[in-house]
């Protein structure tokens, strides 16, 4: 079973397909859950505080906007943990955790930089493309450690 970073990190379909085919999806929910389930100072809604953008300094310089650094503090540790990645291009209608284009660009770059198996594709636009989409993901996942190939 491999840890697969899903991009968009909020993707419903990738979260489903990765776990359906026997691996662990790494996305926003993992980091958000960690914030929500850790005691500390109360800072609703996400329990993120000014410390999070500062933690983000590990992945983005101080001149980078705080919202980017805050999001990177959610994603940075997951990218380090990831053993593979699936990237869907242009997450133009993923909001919230994936709502900032600058963070998304940096995140995609970090995933491409890391030496690990990676699949890049786009959303299907027809039933036929749906077959290709699922087939590519299934094949990619089956070839990962712990996959069924």
């Amino acid at each position: 079973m491999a840890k697969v970073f899903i991009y968009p990190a909020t993707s419903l379909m990738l979260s489903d397909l990765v776990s359906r085919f026997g691996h662990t999806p790494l996305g926003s929910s993992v980091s958000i859950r960690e914030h929500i389930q850790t005691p500390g100072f109360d800072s609703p809604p996400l329990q993120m505080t000014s410390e999070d953008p500062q933690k983000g300094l590990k992945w983005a310089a101080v001149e980078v906007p705080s919202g980017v650094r805050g999001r990177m503090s959610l994603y940075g540790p997951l990218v380090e943990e990831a053993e593979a990645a699936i990237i869907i291009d242009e997450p133009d209608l993923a909001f919230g955790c994936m709502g900032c284009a600058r963070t998304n660009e940096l995140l995609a770059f970090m995933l491409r930089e890391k030496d690990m198996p990676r699949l890049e594709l786009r959303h299907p636009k027809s039933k036929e493309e749906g077959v290709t989409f699922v087939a590519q993901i299934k094949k990619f996942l089956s070839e990962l450690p712990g996959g069924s190939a």
Partner: protein
Amino acid sequence: MKEYTPEYVGTVTKYVFVDSPDTTPQDIAVAAYEIAQGVMVKETCFGCQITGTPEDVERIIDHLRSLDPYRIFVKDRGFPPGDSRRCRANLGGARPGYLGHEFEMKLSLYISYGLSEVDKMTPAELKRAAEKSLPVEENLDIGQLEKIFMEK
């Protein structure tokens, strides 16, 4: 600053979405309740949300998936269901993730079809199907554009 004491520590929450002519969101919720054994199940307009230990949640999800394997989609969630920090009633509007789900569920038809087709494939067929291109659209290279014009 106020101290924060988290609830539901050690649990996971999963969204279960269904978009099917055969199974309604209510069917899914009822099926989940039937085998819940104390695990928290919350019915929603798109299916349900299940909160419990990872093992318990997995057990229920496996059962639900078997009801309509290609048309049920499961997503991991950071928040427990009905959390006031994310609830529409408190925020005045939907949390941002809601709109993202709305967008992705529009693709479910294609993906459901893909899942059912892929399930019938032999490994060799899968390999061939995966080789088909699903290219990331890029702007046409200016050199290529010129070539096309010249050819015309």
